[in-house]
């Protein structure tokens, strides 16, 4: 970690990554990244296409395990526990570290079932009444309750794009995660839906540690308090968001955010 990173390091990080390297077969996609994620600050990962920000995000909930040729080195901890240790239950990890994807992907089930699925498979609900409470709470936190409370048994795929993405966020929230990872959640949405999701992120801050990968620098500037700039698999610069966007230290960072890149 750089000196600046150490200076900014939170006292009580939720997740830490130290010297993380990711290989796809012989090719190295991530080259020794160290970063901390904490509850109070939304962290944004920015960088050009192919810089490894999505790959790194996926190491945080072990989604890279699904790719046969992927190999992860280094240490990533959640509340101090190494998530790649054999004793860590991947299924439980993914409930604690939830993920929202670029293209909204609700299950082809009803809205109620979409939210209820996670709590059901993890055994979080004590009965139907309890499940109803969980579903309502999740939908309210996702800012979707008012719009769908009268049609909970309609298909989740019949909603608009922005609503589907909020449904996916609600689905992630339903299993009581501690961290929410968002991989370009607004790229497929129109500006109004995007604004609603950004406002939602603002409301969720503090209750969940949020990491958001985004192509849109204005979005990173709007929603995050810490920004990490990735380039060619390296973490080039990490800092307070307003500093990164008004006075970045690294030349590469400056070139990227001022549009002098490429």
């Amino acid at each position: 970690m750089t000196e600046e990173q150490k200076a900014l390091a939170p006292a009580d990080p939720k997740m830490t990554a130290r010297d993380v390297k990711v290989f796809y077969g012989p090719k190295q996609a991530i080259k020794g990244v160290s970063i901390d994620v904490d509850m109070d600050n939304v962290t944004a990962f920015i960088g050009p296409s192919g810089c490894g920000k999505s790959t790194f995000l996926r190491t945080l909930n072990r989604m890279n395990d699904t790719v046969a040729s992927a190999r992860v080195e280094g240490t990533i901890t959640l509340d101090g526990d190494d998530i790649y240790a054999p004793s860590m239950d991947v299924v439980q990890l993914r409930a604690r570290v939830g993920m929202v994807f670029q293209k909204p992907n609700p299950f082809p089930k009803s809205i109620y079932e979409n939210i209820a699925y996670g709590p059901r498979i993890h055994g979080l609900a004590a009965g139907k009444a309890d499940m109803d409470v969980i579903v309502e709470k999740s939908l309210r936190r996702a800012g979707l309750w008012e719009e769908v409370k009268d049609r909970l048994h309609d298909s989740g795929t019949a909603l608009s794009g922005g609503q589907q993405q909020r449904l996916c966020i609600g689905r992630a929230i339903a299993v009581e995660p501690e961290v929410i990872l968002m991989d370009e959640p607004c790229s497929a949405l129109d500006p109004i839906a995007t604004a609603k999701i950004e406002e939602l992120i603002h409301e969720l801050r503090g209750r969940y540690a949020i990491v958001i990968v985004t192509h849109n620098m204005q979005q990173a500037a709007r929603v995050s308090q810490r920004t990490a700039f990735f380039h060619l698999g390296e973490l080039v610069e990490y800092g307070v968001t307003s500093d990164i966007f008004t006075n970045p230290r690294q030349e590469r960072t400056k070139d990227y955010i001022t549009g002098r890149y490429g």
Partner: protein
Amino acid sequence: MAEHTIKAFDEEIDTLRGLIAEMGGRAEAAIENAMVALLRQDRDLAAQVVADDKRIDAIEAEVEKLVIQVIALRAPMANDLRDVIAALKIVSVVERIGDYAKNIAKRVPMIATNSRTMEPVSLLPSMGQVAGEMVHDALNAFAARDPDLALAVVERDTVVDDFYNSVFRTLVTFMVENPKTISECAHLLFVAKNIERIGDHATNVAEMVYYAATGQTLPDRERRQDLQPEE
């Protein structure tokens, strides 16, 4: 520095800087002409300085409009953002400098004397020159994005301040000894004050240039008292 991927952005920045350079040049000319007019009692030149100030004001309006457009359309970040904001502030300061030069020129007809009998007047051209150079250097620093040159300008402000203090004392003494010249001397006091203000504004420009280039603000500098208590 590398160019923006979007060429129009670079063109707009160049236009902006060009306008500021032009405005700066005009302001410098106004200061110089005003001082010459003062020395030579040239009322025509003075009138021209007053008239030319309109052009300086017009450029300020144009730059403001362009800056707002760049911010809305290009969403500048980091050094681009600092450059653009600095440009906005510098332009209003240079417009004030132009106004001071105009003010000096306006007082020329009211100072009906020649420098041989008015010793204090002889100090003014040198003071004006220093102030004029400060403006010149500050604008050069802006053009070159040079923080060191900007810093040098800031330091030179003490020279102008010292000049002003000495002119002030001389004029007061002169007024006491030649009560008939009080009205002209009063005008001269204002002229000296204007030149001192021009120096301060040139310093402001330099400070903004420094911030745009480095992202740091200069620490508050010690301002010299412009009135020492009488012994």
